[in-house]
C-alpha cells in the first residue's frame, strides 16, 4: 500500500514512478524515504509524551479493567479471584446505577442549556470594545479560579434553609423559601446553579477567544449588505464560531460525567440518591464500601460512556481544521 502523498509531491503515473525519470531516483522511493524520515521524527518527537502517558494513562486503565473482573476489596482476607462480568452484573446493570446515570445526564443537560447561552451572551458582550470590559473580564473569570470544594462549601451555607442568604433574598422579594438541599428538585437545581457559577466563566473565556480570532471581513461585508446586528450574529458570527462552540460543549460533557466534588460537599448525593451521579456512586463504592473491583467496574463503564464524546470531539476538531 502506498503512503499518502505529502503536500507538494508530484503525482506520477504508476509506470513512470516505477521506472524513474531522467536518472533521478524513483519518485516513489524518494517519497517513501521522506515519509519514513517524517515518521521517525514524529515518533522521536512524541516519545517523551508517550513515555509519560502510557504509565499514567494506559496502564492504570488496563489494570482497572483487570480489577473490574475480579473480586478485590479491602476488607476481604481471602485471595481475590476472577469473577468475570459479575461486578458489571451486580453494580452496573441495576436500578441504582441507572438512576445515577439519569441524574448525571439530567444535570449535564440542564447545565448545558443554562451555561452555553449565558457564556455565549457574556462572550459577545465582552467582545465589544466598551469601557470597563477588561475589569468585567477579570471579575467574571474569578469563579473559575476557585476550587470546587471551597465554592460548594460557600454555597452550602448560602443554601441553608434557615440561615442562608438565598432564602433570605427570596423572602425579601416575597417569594417562597425553598428547602434547597432537602428536596429533590431544588437540590438538583442547586447543583446546576453551583456548577454553572463555575462553568459559565470557562465557557465565556473559550468563546471569547474564538470570537476574537474570527476574521472581520465577513462581518464587514454583511454590514455593508445591510444586515442588522442580530442577522450578522446569527448568520455570520455564529456559523463561524460553531467549531469552538462544539469543542466547548464536548469539554463540558466530559466535565459533566466527572462531576463529583460539588455534589459531594453540597448534597452528598441526597436527598436519598436524588443527586447521586455516577462519579459519586463510584466514590461511595470505592471509598465507603471499600469494594475495589465493583468500583473498577463502575469506573470502566463510566469511561466507556465518555468515549462517544471523545469521538465526536475528534470529528469536530477535524471539521475545525
Amino acid at each position, binding site marked *: 500500500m502506498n503512503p499518502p502523498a505529502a503536500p507538494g509531491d508530484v503525482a506520477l503515473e504508476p509506470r513512470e514512478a516505477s521506472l524513474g525519470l531522467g536518472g533521478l531516483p524513483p519518485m516513489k522511493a524518494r517519497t517513501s524515504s521522506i515519509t519514513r524520515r517524517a515518521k521517525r521524527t514524529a515518533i522521536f518527537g512524541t516519545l517523551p509524551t508517550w513515555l509519560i502517558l502510557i504509565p*499514567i*494513562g494506559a*496502564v*492504570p*486503565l*488496563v*489494570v*482497572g479493567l483487570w*480489577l473490574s473482573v475480579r473480586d*478485590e*476489596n*479491602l*476488607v*476481604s*482476607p*481471602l*485471595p*481475590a479471584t476472577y469473577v468475570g462480568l459479575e461486578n458489571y452484573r451486580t453494580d452496573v446493570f441495576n436500578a441504582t446505577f441507572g438512576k445515577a446515570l439519569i441524574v448525571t445526564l439530567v444535570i449535564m443537560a440542564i447545565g448545558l442549556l443554562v451555561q452555553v447561552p449565558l457564556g455565549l451572551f457574556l462572550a459577545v458582550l465582552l467582545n465589544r470594545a466598551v469601557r470597563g470590559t477588561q475589569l468585567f473580564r477579570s471579575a467574571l473569570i474569578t469563579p473559575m479560579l476557585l476550587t470546587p470544594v471551597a465554592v460548594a462549601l460557600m454555597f452550602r451555607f448560602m443554601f*441553608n*434553609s*434557615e*440561615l442562608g442568604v438565598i432564602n433570605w433574598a427570596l423572602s425579601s422579594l416575597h417569594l417562597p*423559601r425553598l*428547602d*434547597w*438541599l*432537602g*428536596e*429533590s428538585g431544588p*437540590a438538583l437545581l442547586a447543583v446546576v446553579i453551583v456548577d454553572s457559577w463555575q462553568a459559565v466563566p470557562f465557557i465565556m473565556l473559550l468563546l471569547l477567544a474564538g470570537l476574537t480570532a474570527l476574521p472581520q471581513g465577513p462581518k464587514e461585508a454583511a454590514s455593508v449588505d445591510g444586515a442588522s446586528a442580530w442577522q450578522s450574529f446569527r448568520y455570520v458570527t455564529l456559523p463561524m464560531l460553531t467549531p469552538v462552540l462544539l469543542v466547548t460543549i464536548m469539554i463540558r460533557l466530559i466535565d459533566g460525567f*466527572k462531576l*463529583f466534588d460539588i455534589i*459531594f460537599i453540597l*448534597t*452528598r*448525593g*441526597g*436527598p*436519598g*440518591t436524588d443527586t447521586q451521579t*455516577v*462519579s459519586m456512586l*463510584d*466514590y*461511595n*463504592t*470505592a*471509598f*465507603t*464500601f*471499600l*469494594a*475495589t473491583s465493583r*468500583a*473498577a467496574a*463502575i*469506573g*470502566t463503564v*463510566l*469511561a466507556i460512556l465518555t468515549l462517544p464524546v471523545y469521538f465526536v470531539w475528534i470529528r469536530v476538531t477535524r471539521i475545525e481544521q
Partner: protein
Amino acid sequence: MRRTRSFVVVAGLMAIGMVAAGCSSSTSNDASGSKSASANKPSEINVFTIPSPSADALKKMAPLFTAKTGIKVNFSSTEYGTAHQKALLSIKSKQGAFDVVQFDNTFLPAFAYAGALAPLDDYQKSDAYDLNDFSPALQKYGTYGGKTYGLVLSTEPFITWYRKSILAKANLKAPTTWDEYQAVAKATNSGNTHGQIIGYGTGGGDWWWMQLVWSWGGQLYDKDFKPLVNSPEAVAATQYYKDLLPLAPSGALSFTGDDVTIQYASTQIAQMIQYSGYASGVFDPAKSPVAGDTAVAAVPAGKVNAVELAGWNIGIPSDAPNPDAGWQFLEFALGKENAKKMLEFGAAAIGRKSVTTDPAMLAKYPYLSLLGLDTPGLVVYPYPQLVTWPEFDKACSDGLADILTGKVSVQDGLNALNDKLTLILAKEPKG
C-alpha cells in the same frame, strides 16, 4: 511477588481515580497481631489520626509522652472520607507505616475481619490501662469476634440537649420518654422556635432512626443476619421519626451530623438528640451562643431504655513496626492516669468510671454523668458490628429519604429497605 502486588495496587488506584475514585489491595491475610517485641527501643513511632478533637488531644499528649519515654511521636492525619481506605490499604500492603491507627468504631469489624489490627487483649490487662475502670458495655466496645482490636478513644452516646429558657418559658421539664419528647416539641414549636432537631440527612439520618428502632423494641437484623427493619416495632419507630420532621427546622433533610449541632447552636431550637462528643463545642461560650442556656439529660426511653453508643476507637495495626511502643503511647494517653487530661485537652470524654464519677470533673463537665453507661436497666447499643456496615448504612439512609420525602409510605419503604438489606447482609461473613 509483593512488589508486583504493590505495583498492581498503585496502578489500580490510579485507574479508578481517573474516573472518580479507586483503590486496590493485596489480599494476604495476616491477623496474627502478635506482639513482636522490638529488639531495640524505637526512637519514634508513627500515629495515623483522623481530624477530630480526640486526635488533637493526642497530639497535645505526645510531648508529655516523649518527655517520659524519649520516644518521639509523629502524626499523620487524613480526612474522614478517605481515612479508612488509606489506612486499610497501607496496612494490607504491609508498608509498616504506622504503629497506632485511629478509626471510627463503625469500621472496626471491617478492619478486624481484614486482619488489619493486632489483638489488644493481652496488652489491656495492664494495671496502668485498667480495663475494669470501664462499664461492661464499654469494655466490649472495641471487640469483634470475641477479641479486642480497639481501645475506647472517645465515648459518645446519644444524649438529650435542651434550651433551659425555652422549656422554662413553656413550663416544661426535660423529656424522659419519647412521648414526652414529642410533647415538648409540639408545645414549643411556634414562631421562630422549632420544637426539636434530630438527624434526617443523607449519610447519617439513619443513626437517629436506629436509636428509635431500638427504643421501640425493634432490631435491625437477627443473629442469622436476616434484616428486620419492616417489623411492627420498626414501622412504629419510623412513623414517629417521620412525625417529628415537621417539628424540625426546614432543611433538616439535608443536615449532616455536624449541621444538626450547628443549627441547634445557631437558632431557636427547644431540644436536640445528639452525640455527647459535641459537648466541647456546644458548652464553649466562645463557639456557641447557647452555651449558658443548654442543659443535657439522658436520651428518652421508649419501650426499651436504649441508648446508641458511638465513638472513636484506636488500635495497633497488624503490620506495626513497633507495636510495643505503640501500646506504650496508648496506655499513656488513654490509661487511667491521663484520661482526665485528655478531656482537658479538648477530647471527647473517655467514659472511664474514674472520670465520669469524679466530683471535680462533674462540676466542670456535668454531661459526664451520662457517659458511664452503667445505669440499671439501660441497654447500650453500639453501631451494628457488621463488616458490611458502610453499605448497610448507605442503604438505610437512602431508603429513609424516600420515606421522609413522601415518595413511599412507611411500610412500603421499609419493605423495600428490608429487601435491599437482605442482599447486603447476605455478604456478611458468617461465624
